[in-house]
């Protein structure tokens, strides 16, 4: 894994006069920008882009890609992120010319297949979540949260009072408070009970008509299913509040239980987690929002509807909160997700969730005794350990860095905040047992190293392309722009 090549930036590889294309000689008279565009023409010098050949650029990015770690290389146990393997059939499907070549402004009559795809995905997500309606527009999980909170605000406003407060347990996803705040609500943190679940009596005492909603991540970031969820929904509804479910951990639930059946009003679904579309890397995500019928009038425009075997975009939605994304969302991400749902089928999705829970509990059983559990109760698709008992001043961060030397992406660390030095592990259903055993072996070795040769752990990684990075200096004095 260790590489000695120092990869320069493209700007540093600049070779004036070189380029990647040979154009024929210009056979029309040249026109200056200033003459053609007058005051609109830029006056400044052209942007100093690096001059490189095609092979320079391809080799640069290929070398960089070889420094990368991905789920195609091995276990990627980043808790709460559901880094499952992305089946390659998804990629084949979204490259179909009829999907990749369709134009968003094309006449609906000539894009019936694309609309049918979106309609089918809306229907599938409603069936999986137990909801009545769905928008595919939001481009990410937090974007979905914000959209969902806007639906709740619009709903309360339509009833005459937008209300003021959103309750969020301390075991929720970190983005929840930001989404509620952005939707104009005051966020109130709600302490979890000793079992990591909502304290129902405390919630009952706190609930009143100022509270617009509660945002719950189920299962929460401890991997614990919110056993009081029905009571929570009843308490909120009794005072006219709404229940928002953060669906980031839906991978633990598919085909087993549905938020809509618990009484939840609205949720977002991370297609790039549960439904095997690519995560980030700068690429687009998708965070569709599904809701109950009473929130449906407020969904963003347009929604894909089916009338007499024809699909169309419905813009006639006077109560809509408006658009939340250009056109119809990240269409090819939606295509990948539907490919996954269709290839898995209902039974396949259910067994994916069951295996995700089984894998996490396998790792939990194997690692207990080597690491200390953060909470004792039963957990679903992920498990959180803490830094208690780590010897010789070895920290969670040291432990995570040392895992890199053993060829693994580290788990999520220091989150959730309610577990000291949290190590949050989510293997997902796509890990074979041998890969998990290899991980367990690595953890065992690191625990032994922490006892016997702590410096080896504290100074890790040793085998990576970059050694221990000074994250403090990077955060305190970030250099975000390359300067000549």
């Amino acid at each position, binding site marked *: 894994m260790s590489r000695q090549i120092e990869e320069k930036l493209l700007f540093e590889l600049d070779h004036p006069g070189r380029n990647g294309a040979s154009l024929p000689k210009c056979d029309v008279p040249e026109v200056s920008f200033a003459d053609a565009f007058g005051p609109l023409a830029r006056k400044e010098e052209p942007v100093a882009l690096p001059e490189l050949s095609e092979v320079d650029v391809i080799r640069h990015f290929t070398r960089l890609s070889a420094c990368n770690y991905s789920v195609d290389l091995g276990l990627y146990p980043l808790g709460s992120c559901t880094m499952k393997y992305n089946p390659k059939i998804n990629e084949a499907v979204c490259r179909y010319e009829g999907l990749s070549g369709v134009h968003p402004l094309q006449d609906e009559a000539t894009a019936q297949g694309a609309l049918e795809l979106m309609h089918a995905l809306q229907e599938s997500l409603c069936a999986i979540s137990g909801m009545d309606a769905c928008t595919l527009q939001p481009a990410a999980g937090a974007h979905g949260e914000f959209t969902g909170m806007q639906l709740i605000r619009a709903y309360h406003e339509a009833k005459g009072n937008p209300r003021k407060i959103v309750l969020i347990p301390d075991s929720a996803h970190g983005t929840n408070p930001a989404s509620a705040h952005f939707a104009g609500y005051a966020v109130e943190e709600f302490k979890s009970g000793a079992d990591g679940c909502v304290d129902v009596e405390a919630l009952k005492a706190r609930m009143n008509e100022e509270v617009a909603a509660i945002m719950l991540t189920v299962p929460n970031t401890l991997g614990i299913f919110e056993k009081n969820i029905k009571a929570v929904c009843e308490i909120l509804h009794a005072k006219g509040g709404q229940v928002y479910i953060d669906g980031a951990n839906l991978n633990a639930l598919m085909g087993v239980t549905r938020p809509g059946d618990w009484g939840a009003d609205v949720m977002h679904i991370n297609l790039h987690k549960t439904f095997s579309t690519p995560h980030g890397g700068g690429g687009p995500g998708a965070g569709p929002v599904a809701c109950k019928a009473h929130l449906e009038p407020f969904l963003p425009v347009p929604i894909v509807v089916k009338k007499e075997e024809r699909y169309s975009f419905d813009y006639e939605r006077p109560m809509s909160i408006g658009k939340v994304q250009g056109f119809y969302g990240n269409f090819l991400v939606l295509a990948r997700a539907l490919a996954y749902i269709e290839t898995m089928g209902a039974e396949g999705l259910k067994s994916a969730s069951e295996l995700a829970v089984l894998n996490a509990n396998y790792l939990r059983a194997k690692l207990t005794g080597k690491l200390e559990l953060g909470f004792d109760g039963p957990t679903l698709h992920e498990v959180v350990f803490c830094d208690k008992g780590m010897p010789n001043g070895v920290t969670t961060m040291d432990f995570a860095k040392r895992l890199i030397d053993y060829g693994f992406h580290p788990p999520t660390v*220091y*989150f959730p*905040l309610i577990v*000291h030095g949290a190590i949050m592990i989510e293997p997902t259903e796509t890990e074979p047992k041998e890969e998990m055993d290899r991980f367990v072996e690595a953890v065992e070795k690191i625990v032994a190293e922490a006892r016997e040769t702590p410096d080896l752990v504290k100074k890790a990684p040793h085998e990576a392309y970059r050694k221990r990075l000074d*994250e*403090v200096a990077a*955060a*305190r004095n970030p250099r975000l722009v390359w300067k000549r």
Partner: protein
Amino acid sequence: MNIPSGLRYTKTHEWVKIEGQTGTVGVSDFAQHELGDIVFVEAPQPGDGVTAGAQMGTVESVKAVSELNCPISGTVAETNEALADHPEYLNQDPYGAGWIVKVTLSDAKEAEGLMDAQAYAKYVAESGH
């Protein structure tokens, strides 16, 4: 762990030093140790009103972003400008160079409801760390 006497402490690990009508506010040694290397401090500006127990800013460390609550109510008189370039003062000297704001108190007696050093030491010990 350093818990100087003469200061008052909150359950959310802020301290306040009362001198006449002014309260100087920062985070405790325990807090800076738990947060780890602090990289950014967001504090209210002079003239801003602050309320006891309510959030007045954030402290960002390599590990996490945490709420900064104000121990006492009043109006911000002075903000520690040095923290913009030197957030590490919170780690190095939490009770000295790492002070965050000075507040003109609306009620000089309000701080008496907070923990003294002895009570805070007991609180930290009991919270299981």
